[in-house]
């Protein structure tokens, strides 16, 4: 049975190596489909693991598809059908989680995004993923072919795994006129980048007591040379900006140190901080879900701890 790995324009090397790691545990040979022309994809020869038997590169002269994937999904679906791929694996990101279900619909297959594991038993595919607001892990059988999945597995290395060189076969997406929208404008969000890549992050949750509490957390962040994030309730109350929200539907942070004040520790929020190396949490409820995700915890009133931290940091102010 033919299988393929799909590499999308915004994938980085951690994504690609993560996919290479996943296929090590699955039988059969794989093809590699590269999409787009950015950076490392431009090499004419590509280093790949032994399991990869051929590379197909889909070039696109106008990669900006901020509003839709219509033409990609149809072209890819046609190619997947032509090659009789029974399994398609991609990394999970904002693009693949829209593109893959769309391709699957065209092919009438089974699709699951953000899977955490993939197993093959007796020619059947089983996957796991988080459900119920990320509190539960569910196992599914994907019954129809092709099986199309995205995974959030990332490799710890951002270098190529050099095994062998393969020459690519080039393909081109057909050019089409997108006339269903007009006045397209884009704006880069710089603040999110700062939070996403920060080495130290402080997060203000609902328990910080409103705008004053949030401002104090932001002041501590400044003194500690950290970035400030927040949880959904503070964004919904208009206290913090939308782009500061940490969690599965906001920014996923991975700092060396993450200090959280007054969050209940709801699973979607926990997903956003779980990649932190060391997590500190402050909450006055000893039964709070927050402490499930922390390395160090303080059971106390958040406002008191925040005030004491500010006092301790005053000598460094100004």
């Amino acid at each position: 049975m033919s299988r393929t790995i799909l590499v999308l324009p915004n994938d980085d090397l951690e994504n690609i190596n993560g996919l290479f790691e996943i296929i090590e545990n699955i039988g059969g040979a794989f093809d590699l489909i590269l999409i787009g022309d950015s950076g490392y994809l431009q090499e004419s020869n590509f280093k790949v693991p032994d399991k990869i038997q051929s590379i197909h590169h889909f070039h696109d002269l106008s990669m900006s598809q901020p509003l839709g994937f219509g033409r990609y999904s149809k072209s890819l679906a046609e190619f997947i059908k032509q090659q009789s791929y029974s399994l398609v694996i991609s990394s999970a990101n904002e693009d693949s989680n829209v593109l893959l279900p769309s391709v699957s619909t065209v092919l009438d297959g089974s699709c699951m995004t953000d899977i955490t594991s993939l197993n093959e038993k007796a020619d059947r595919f089983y996957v796991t993923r988080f459900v119920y607001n990320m509190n539960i892990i569910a196992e599914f059988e994907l019954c129809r072919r092709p099986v199309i999945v995205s995974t959030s597995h990332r490799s710890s290395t951002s270098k190529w795994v050099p095994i062998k060189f393969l020459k690519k076969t080039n393909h081109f997406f057909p050019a089409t006129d997108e006339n269903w929208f007009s006045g397209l404008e884009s704006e880069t969000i710089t603040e999110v980048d700062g939070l996403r890549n920060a080495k130290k992050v402080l997060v203000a949750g609902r328990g910080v007591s409103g705008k004053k509490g949030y401002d104090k957390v932001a002041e501590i962040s400044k003194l500690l040379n950290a970035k400030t994030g927040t949880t959904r309730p503070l964004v919904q109350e208009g206290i913090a900006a939308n782009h500061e929200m940490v969690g599965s539907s906001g920014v996923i942070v991975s700092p060396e140190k993450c200090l959280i004040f007054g969050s209940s520790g709801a699973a979607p929020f926990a997903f956003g901080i779980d990649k932190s190396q060391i997590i500190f949490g402050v909450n006055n409820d000893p039964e709070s879900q927050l402490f499930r995700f922390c390395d160090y915890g303080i059971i106390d009133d958040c406002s008191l701890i925040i005030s004491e931290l500010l006092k301790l940091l005053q000598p460094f102010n100004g």
Partner: protein
Amino acid sequence: MIRILICFAVVHDTENVLKSDWENLTSQNPGIEHSNMIIDTYDESALEYALQCKEMASKVTCPIHLTALTIGQSLSATIYQNLFAVGIDRVVLLKEKAPVSFCPSRISRIIHKFTCDERFDAIFMGQQNSITCNGQTGIRLSNLLNVPLISYVNDVVFINNKFHVKTKKRLQYTRAVIEQPAIYCFFNAERSYLRMATLREKLKVQSREIDVFDVDKTFDQQENEINLISLSYNPVTRNCQFINGQNAGEKAQVLLSLFMKD
């Protein structure tokens, strides 16, 4: 008249479910039947933005009619009366006895059938459901209807009889004017709460009823593309060490020294 269809799911409110409740789940049932049923948070954004568009349209000559649609065995009066009270014109329940979780293909085909019978200029929905987390219904519906899909919608306004959309993806906002019927999937939207109805608004609509249609039985007979095998509790990986002290000052001092340690 512009007609907007808003698709919404009624789901368990998992915010108030205790750890011990999750641990009691069986392999096919999460065991949280006692929890409140609410409109899914992503769909709340879709409903709120539809109401805002209706308000914007009322200031000009082109009125907007809002139909809210859900699929399931029943719909509580508390939910639908609140929808009427905040300004939804019509609420539709497509009655389906079979479980509707984890069946994105079937759900999208059921909605597709409904939309083929009626004409809509825009379909609003949450990009994913917080219970199933599939995020596939809008995408599949877009393919079935052959209309564009706009995902990661962050904000929508209705100006000069057109929808002006803002999406947020990775490190980028994108704005555009939509020229054709389309599906708008809301994700991490700027206004994520559905407004509350006043008592006066609720009293005004208390006699209104929803439209109920039975789902065609042929949808149940088709094989699902996904089968749920089992559910298990998501275990916690970190072992929390508590910082003790006589008062908040002492605890803050230990916390700060640990946080600043290289």
